[in-house]
């Protein structure tokens, strides 16, 4: 037993070292977070670098109304009051390098219509100015109806809604969502990347015709276990590097309380579900991988298997919207979606204990069954050269 374990870890070590020396793997490790950050954080970064320039607009106020420039969200828009005549405003604004001008006259308060002239065609938003003029117009009209200044202020005061949870909860929802995204997303990436690496590893072993040599020193189960553990470690290394690089950058770009997520009291539970989920999918991938000659020869049914880790993504939207709903419960009990859905719901704090226990039980049983079946398929499939196994052949292997 000890000897078998020793050899299993030798396989693990070999898989890890081979990949760590592989340029593609190394490039992939560093490139993936860069790509994610590039696509996720680039708009934010560009926004910071390329802030909209300050725009200046001249205006001539021919009315008694006072524009409350301190109150409105004018953003980058600067309003410059012009003290001259209606005829001179265009030239003065142009000479001053302003972007445009408008004239506030009684006509505006009668018809609610105002024209802003710009010197160049523009796609810039003038929503702030629009809101400011809107306020002035409302103010003017209410005063026209004889309402006192105080009454107007009271009537136009906005409602404020504050949501306070009655549940005794020290963790804020924002932090919970971050935790759910980090651990649920992390496991998803682990399944996708390590799963495909495992598949390629099994295919490569067949392509290199190494299976028989290795199986003359270790059992098929030992080889399979070594590969699964090896690629789990590789996945963890990958995720570790991603977090190492990604956390400080994400903190800078997205301003999320990411580190807090790791101090979640449910962390051990996340680890259990992540481990079981990884083992279940790893067994599935390595088993199916051993039945294939190469990736091109994968049949439709074999290809479908590699889409299975994506299942939770299909229901993650509804689960986030209604984490206590029927779909969330079903997703937590169905073993192929359970690891990610349970982690997300636990992080969000909306999953009953009985569901966690039942889900863990179903997942454990499924993982054990998948591993035993995969070992049977792996033993025969890895020695099959020249063609991919048909579904009926795989069934026959399972029966024997």
């Amino acid at each position: 037993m000890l000897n078998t374990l020793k050899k299993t870890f030798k396989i693990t070590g070999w898989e890890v070292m081979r990949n760590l020396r592989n340029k593609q793997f190394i490039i992939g490790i560093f490139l993936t977070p860069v790509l994610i950050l590039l696509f996720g954080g680039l708009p934010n970064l560009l926004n910071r670098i390329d802030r909209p320039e300050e725009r200046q607009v001249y205006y001539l106020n021919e009315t008694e109304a006072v524009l409350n420039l301190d109150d409105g969200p004018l953003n980058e828009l600067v309003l410059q009051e012009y003290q001259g005549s209606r005829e001179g405003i265009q030239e003065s604004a142009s000479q001053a390098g302003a972007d445009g001008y408008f004239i506030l006259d009684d006509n505006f308060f009668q018809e609610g219509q105002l024209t802003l002239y710009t010197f160049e065609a523009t796609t810039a938003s003038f929503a702030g100015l629009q809101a400011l003029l809107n306020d002035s117009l409302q103010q003017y009209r209410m005063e026209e109806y004889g309402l006192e200044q105080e009454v107007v202020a009271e009537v136009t005061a906005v409602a404020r809604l504050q949501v306070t949870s009655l549940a005794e909860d020290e963790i804020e929802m924002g932090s919970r969502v971050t935790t759910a995204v980090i651990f649920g997303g992390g496991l998803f990436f682990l399944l996708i990347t390590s799963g495909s690496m495992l598949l390629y590893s099994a295919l490569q072993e067949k392509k290199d015709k190494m299976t028989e040599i290795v199986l003359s020193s270790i059992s098929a189960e030992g080889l399979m276990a070594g590969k699964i553990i090896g690629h789990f470690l590789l996945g963890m290394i990958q995720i570790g590097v991603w977090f190492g690089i990604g956390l400080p950058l994400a903190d800078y770009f997205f301003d999320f309380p990411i580190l807090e997520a790791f101090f979640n009291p449910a962390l051990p539970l996340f680890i259990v579900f992540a481990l079981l989920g990884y083992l279940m999918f790893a067994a599935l991938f390595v088993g199916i991988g051993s039945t294939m000659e190469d990736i091109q020869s994968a049949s439709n049914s074999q290809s479908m298997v590699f889409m299975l880790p994506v299942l939770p993504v299909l229901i993650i939207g509804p689960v986030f919207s209604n984490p206590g709903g029927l779909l969330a419960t079903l997703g937590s009990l169905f073993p192929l979606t359970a690891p990610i859905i349970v982690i997300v719901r636990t992080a969000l704090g909306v999953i009953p204990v009985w569901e966690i226990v039942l889900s863990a039980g179903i997942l454990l049983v499924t993982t054990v069954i998948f591993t035993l079946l995969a070992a049977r398929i792996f033993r025969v499939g890895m020695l099959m050269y020249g063609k991919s196994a048909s579904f009926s052949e795989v069934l026959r292997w399972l029966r024997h």
Partner: protein
Amino acid sequence: MGVLGPNGAGKTSLIRMIMDINAPDSGSINFNFQNGSGDNWQESIGYLPEERGLYKNASVKDILAFLGGLKGLEKKVAQNRGKEWLEKFGLLDNYRDKIEELSKGMAQKVQFATCVLHEPELLILDEPFSGLDPVSQDLMKEEIRNLARKGTAIMLSSHQMNLVEEVCDRIFLMDKGSKVLYGDLEDIKNEYGNYRVKLTTADSRRLETFLSNNPRIHSFRQNKINWNILLENEVGPAEFIAILPEDLSITEISITRISLHDIFVRVARGGLLDAEYTKEDL
């Protein structure tokens, strides 16, 4: 010991069952190793499978350490012993090369080295000569003989029976998954290996008269002045020469035992023992 049989006889299946890679439908396989039992029994066996291959993007050095490690060797020991074998095969300069940089024959020699690194008690070689050029075949035969001399039990499977005859002293002949013959090569040849005489003479009429109805002659065939004569089982070369007519004019004569291939055809396939010309004769 040579395991012989035509393609599809079950040689590789038998070996895979011995290696516990495939399970037998019935029966069991037991070893009697001096060292190694329990779950490290595989460390007493070296195995060169028929399907040749090594990790193409790994270096020879790493492969030696990895496969040696799986057989229970320390990394340094595996690499040092590997170097010794590479030196024997003239591949020491390729120690740090990747497998994909080696020729097929070179990679095959490296693979042979990996299965003898741990000095196994039993060495199983499945079609060890296939894919090798004649010079490399001779080198491989010599190393197999050397290992046997040092006490390694060697089980060698091949369908190239002439090569097996050169290195094996026991054979296990099989066909369609069953044993056909098993025993010492010489004993089998004595039992089944009649002598074949190839004789060239201009005096064909005289020879035909001598051969016809001769109880020591099993059968004979003529092709112009060339004769192929199969002696009866108990008749040896000396006896045949002694009974030849004294004044028969002979240009050439050779007497050899029939090959393992002929024995196989005779025993396994129910082929008639015949003096018919084989490809080699013509």
